[in-house]
């Protein structure tokens, strides 16, 4: 008969490796007939393991189809991140919309559409608002009172900018054919040539909660 410690080790390893609950009989079937533990000893080992798992991330419990070791539900928030979906990519339309809001704020959806030459889907605006990169700062006083969008502090933080004035100027963007390479070298401090404004300006521009 295996020693108590060895019995516990085998049972623990089996429950962790099985990928499904194991019954008492299935656990006993792991042993050679010449080395068969008592049913009672297996029960005791299961009990001991369950106690050892107190205060740990896993627990041993008996379910309908046998004994199972599983992650404690209180750890689900961490463990779930194992299967977090890989982030999708943003559409071109969204990036263009965001860029226009950044450079021409405060701006209405109609004005964005005018420049882009195509309509801007409600989803894009919704995504930008949810991501808290964009917020509504007012309404233009024209029929329909369209919302005026502006970027948030969260937008600046995400791109490691202290203020919008650190974005490349329009002229720089138009000129840069090799924007790729240069940005590789210069981001996030894209300030080469950009006019510097007093740095303290933004400390107040808190995004809405």
């Amino acid at each position, binding site marked *: 008969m295996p020693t108590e410690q060895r019995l516990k080790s085998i049972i623990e*390893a089996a429950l*962790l*490796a099985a990928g499904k609950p194991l019954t008492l009989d299935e656990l006993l079937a792991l042993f050679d007939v010449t080395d068969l533990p008592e049913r009672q000893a297996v029960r005791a080992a299961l009990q001991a393991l369950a106690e050892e798992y107190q205060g740990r991330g*896993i627990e041993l419990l008996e379910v309908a189809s046998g004994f*199972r*070791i*599983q*992650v404690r*539900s209180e750890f*689900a928030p961490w*463990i779930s991140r*194992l*299967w977090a*979906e890989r*982030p*999708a*990519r*943003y559409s*071109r339309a969204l*990036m*263009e919309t*965001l*860029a*226009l809001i950044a*450079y*021409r*704020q*405060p701006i209405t959806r109609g004005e964005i559409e005018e*420049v*882009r*030459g195509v309509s801007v889907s409600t989803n894009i605006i919704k995504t930008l608002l949810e*991501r808290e990169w964009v*917020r509504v*700062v*007012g*309404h*233009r*006083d024209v029929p329909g009172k369209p919302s*005026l969008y*502006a*970027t948030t502090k969260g937008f600046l933080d*995400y791109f490691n900018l202290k*203020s*919008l*004035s650190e974005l*490349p*100027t329009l002229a720089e*963007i*138009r000129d840069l054919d090799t*924007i790729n390479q240069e*940005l*590789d070298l210069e*981001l996030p401090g894209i300030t080469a040539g950009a*006019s510097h*404004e*007093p740095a*303290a*300006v933004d400390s*107040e*521009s808190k995004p809405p909660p």
Partner: protein
Amino acid sequence: MEQREITGIGAPHPQQAEMPFAMVQGEVLSTMPRDLYIPPDALEVFLDAFEGPLDLLLYLIKRQNLDILNIPVAQITTQYMEYVELMKELRLELAGEYLLMAAMLAEIKSRMLLPRVSSDESDEHDPRAELIRRLQEYERYKQAAEDLDALPQQGRDTFPLEIEAPDRIIEKRQPDLSMQELLLSFKDVLQRADMFSNLHIKMEPLSVRERMSIVLDRVNSDTFTAFTRLFDYTEGRAGVVVTFLAILELIKGALLELVQTEPYGPIHVKAASSST
């Protein structure tokens, strides 16, 4: 790992008695045949056990407990040829590699039988050298394969674990966006706008644009805000100028209303859209 060296084949490896080497007509062959004679029926099985001519040669050398560096070519060649003859006799499909090796052995043998010119003995290339090199080279990888097989393997010796995680909360991760992508797409917008319209986008410096958003955020369409409260004097002259430009820009865009009830009185500001 300790360093090993391929020398001759020393003591025979421990025998694994319970592992039959082959079953021939119901009879268990638990060791390799001791002499050359192999029951003809067993030959095919026997040859199957070898991974080619080098493996067979290594076996012949080991069987006689010989040093790989000191192969008695004549003897080994004779044995090897007899196997090859047997194969032919049985019309086994002979792999070309076995015949090639036979030719190589025959050549070495013939060269070694020639009288040597004693004067340049040291320069003379030993005809066995190439064979020895190949045998050694093969043997080290044969050994490496055995060592590899002896490593603990997942699913054979060690086992992966996987337990249930209850309540999988699938979290949607937000896409990432680089400044580079953002600017490149903006560049496209600008190019399109230039091409398709007379809409020439003229822009205020970004600091002003940004301040416009901030000012709009501070004012309210229901109540008035004191004009002076829009300025933060700790920012210094430049900051104040930016705010002033932003306010002018907002008024021009009909986004702000300025109210002064009496000359030189306090100016108040509110968002324009309240005037409904």
